[in-house]
């Protein structure tokens, strides 16, 4: 069973762990790598990592639950991060979230039924000059207006969305 799981581990992750094993301050870096490759931290993965770097599972969970970035649930294919830092809040970040809710039918920290989108809130991505800001799948959108959202989501092939629009 155990060997089987190692066999499944992504090679990039194994290489990374081997490279970092002897380094100081490797724990969080390795967990970042797991999440980069798998999108979230499956329990089985946490167990593997625990074994490979010889760190108790409880410690790993201690880290994962403390830091906001680590996800225990599978996010959508396209993650939408809406900034709710101060600048974005003042310039209407709330409206962006409620508009996303209107369009996608999901609130913060939820995934659409088809698994395509998930919405989360982040605290300042450093583009405050362009507030309000959101990030989809690594791409940043600034100076957002509610009306821009359908078009932007359209870039991610959201045709369902256009249907929905027509219904309203």
């Amino acid at each position, binding site marked *: 069973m155990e060997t089987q799981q190692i066999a499944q581990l992504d090679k990039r992750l194994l290489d990374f762990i081997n490279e970092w094993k002897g380094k100081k301050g490797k724990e969080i870096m390795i967990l970042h790598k797991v999440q980069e490759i798998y999108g979230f931290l499956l329990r089985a993965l946490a167990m593997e990592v625990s074994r490979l770097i010889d760190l108790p599972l409880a410690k790993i969970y201690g880290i994962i639950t403390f830091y906001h970035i680590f996800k225990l649930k599978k996010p959508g294919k396209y993650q939408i991060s809406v900034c709710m830092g101060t600048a974005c809040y003042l310039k209407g970040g709330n409206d962006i979230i409620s508009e996303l809710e209107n369009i996608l039918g999901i609130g913060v920290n939820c995934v659409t039924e088809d698994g395509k989108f998930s919405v989360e809130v982040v605290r300042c*991505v*450093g*583009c*405050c*000059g*362009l507030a309000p*800001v959101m990030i989809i799948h690594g*791409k*940043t*959108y*600034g*100076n957002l207006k509610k009306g821009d959202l359908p078009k932007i989501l359209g870039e991610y092939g959201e045709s369902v969305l256009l249907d929905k629009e027509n219904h309203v």
Partner: protein
Amino acid sequence: MNKMKKGDLADFRRNHKSSHKGEVVISMGTCGIAAGGDSIYKLFESEMKEKGLDNIQLKKTGCLGMCFCEPNLVVKLDGMPDILYGNVDEKTAILIMNEHLTKKRIVNFNTIFMPTDDIGKKIFRD
């Protein structure tokens, strides 16, 4: 590159001067890219090649601090004042290449100023 030794830095500064007649510097921090800076960069890259403007260096830089007019870029040509253009879209970009880079005529469109002098150059003057 061989590892540098004491004194090599000064030699490097003496011997590696830029051979270009000017440069186009595009703001490409996270915010500049978010505002479209990278597509403007690509446009300049391909168009400048096409127009044979290879004595002008195209480069990217960090955030100039002018977030309100991103994407922005600076054109520095020998014998002309440095000009910063803000809110550069494709149309302005083409105009800048056709007029400013080619004919040395400043485009009367979204021109802006460098908010400050280049103090860095003064601090580390040789």
